[in-house]
């Protein structure tokens, strides 16, 4: 079997804490029951929101993507992905208590290993980390990293403080050391309003505002000097949308020219750093309706290496089987489907993939 496509954003659904009970220590298992901790649902993806799961993906209980067979049937068998990377969005990042966050992050990663990775050799996953405590986050990376099926470290777009801030750097050091890209996925731990203006009052405003969060994280990571310190670190913007990027980079690079003396370690244009160190998944693309405009946006990126195929299953980003936006040049399709993911995720090296796909 050849590598046909690597789906870089697929969401396994954890429906509640009862699912994680077997993976929690006895103390926490009893605490879930005694304290009545039902689920860690996040306002980022409310169960009934249309974006959370396409109607035809939902099972009788309303949930989609609740087990490995369901996911691989859709993304691998129907859509032809030879491999898929699981990004679990269960709300462990929202918990205030660091110790509970650590316990649930561990349980979640162990659940993913046992109930997903062990069940289908086509699956890979991101390590969910408790960002509430940097030391715990690094410990969790170190704990999971020996399993090479974990190919990425996953964080949310909106954190307590901007990601580039230096107290986060031990996380980047660990990720770089293990060849794990930092995957930044849409979402918030809701410590700050999801807009810089204050709290929005509708879900559409919340979801649309995620792009602002991504922009701020790109600016933070670059200006704080993360890539001067960790030049090999790759960052993947997941479910970020794509078409906002060129305009943002024109603005960012222009201001860098006049204000670069305050961040002298940024010794080349932010646009170049983004092209070298950042990647984006293609769902959603936020496409203009004319395919020619899509082609022009891709030209504005000035790189063929940046886009990674994703279906974002089971989130509802497209209808039918239209996984790749119209207007993506034919010559780029194979790069997006296979070559770029392989070049981004060190742990998806060709040899191990061929082995598991055969």
């Amino acid at each position, binding site marked *: 079997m050849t590598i046909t496509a690597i789906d870089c954003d697929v969401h396994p659904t954890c429906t509640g804490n009862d699912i994680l009970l077997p993976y929690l220590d006895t103390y926490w298992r009893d605490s879930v029951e005694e304290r009545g901790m039902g689920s860690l649902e996040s306002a980022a993806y409310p169960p009934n929101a249309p974006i959370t799961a396409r109607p035809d993906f939902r099972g009788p209980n309303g949930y989609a993507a609740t087990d490995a067979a369901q996911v691989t049937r859709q993304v691998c068998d129907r859509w032809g992905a030879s491999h898929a990377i699981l990004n679990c969005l269960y709300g462990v990042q929202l918990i205030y208590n660091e110790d509970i966050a650590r316990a649930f992050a561990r349980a979640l990663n162990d659940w993913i290993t046992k109930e997903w990775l062990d069940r289908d050799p086509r699956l890979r996953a991101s390590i969910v980390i408790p960002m509430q405590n940097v030391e715990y986050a690094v410990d969790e990376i170190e704990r999971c990293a020996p399993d090479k099926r974990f190919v990425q470290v996953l964080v949310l777009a909106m954190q307590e403080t901007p990601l580039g801030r*230096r107290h986060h750097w031990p996380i980047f050091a660990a990720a770089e050391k293990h060849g794990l890209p930092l995957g930044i996925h849409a979402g918030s731990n809701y410590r700050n309003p999801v807009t810089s203006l204050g709290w929005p009052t509708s879900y559409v405003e919340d979801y649309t505002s995620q792009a602002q969060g991504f922009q701020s994280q790109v600016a933070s990571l670059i200006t704080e*000097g993360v890539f*001067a310190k960790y030049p090999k670190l790759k960052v993947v913007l997941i479910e970020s949308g794509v078409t906002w990027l060129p305009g943002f980079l024109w603005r960012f690079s222009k201001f860098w*020219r006049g204000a*670069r*003396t305050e961040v*002298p*370690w940024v*010794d080349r*244009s932010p646009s170049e750093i983004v092209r070298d160190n950042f990647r984006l998944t293609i769902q959603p693309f936020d496409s203009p309706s004319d395919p020619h405009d899509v082609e022009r946006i891709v030209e504005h990126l000035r790189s063929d290496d940046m886009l990674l195929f994703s279906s974002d299953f089971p989130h509802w980003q497209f209808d039918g089987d239209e996984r790749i936006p119209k207007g993506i040049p034919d010559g780029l399709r194979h790069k997006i489907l296979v070559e770029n993911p392989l070049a981004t995720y060190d742990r998806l090296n060709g040899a191990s993939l061929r082995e598991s796909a055969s």
Partner: protein
Amino acid sequence: MARHVVAPVADIPPGHRKLVDVNGRAVVVFNLDGEFFALNNRCPHKGGSLCDGKQTGLVQSSEPGEYRYSRRGEIIRCPWHSWEFDIRTGQSWCDPQRLRVRRYPVSVEKGAQLVEGPYKAETFPVSVENAYVVVEA
């Protein structure tokens, strides 16, 4: 290229600069510790007057959090968008290969030599015993 006497040396002390007219072109002459440099006054970005910018040093870094400050006074920042130009070379910091200010050769000549020519555009009297800044443009 003609040589133009643009100012008596005493008019541009070390650390100072002067805007002069060279055959209709605005040129800014800098004195960096006794060495003279002449740049086209027009910023190649949008045309800001470099002579009105801040003269500063070069800040570099070998790692985040470290600021290495050197060559104090040898960088001119355009007053409009703060792009930095190296006074010695005219090169921009942000895009040195593609974006630079035109620079002109400068020399200091004794008045005694100047009265013999061939020099142009003296708009002030040249006396034999003084020294003068001469721009080739």
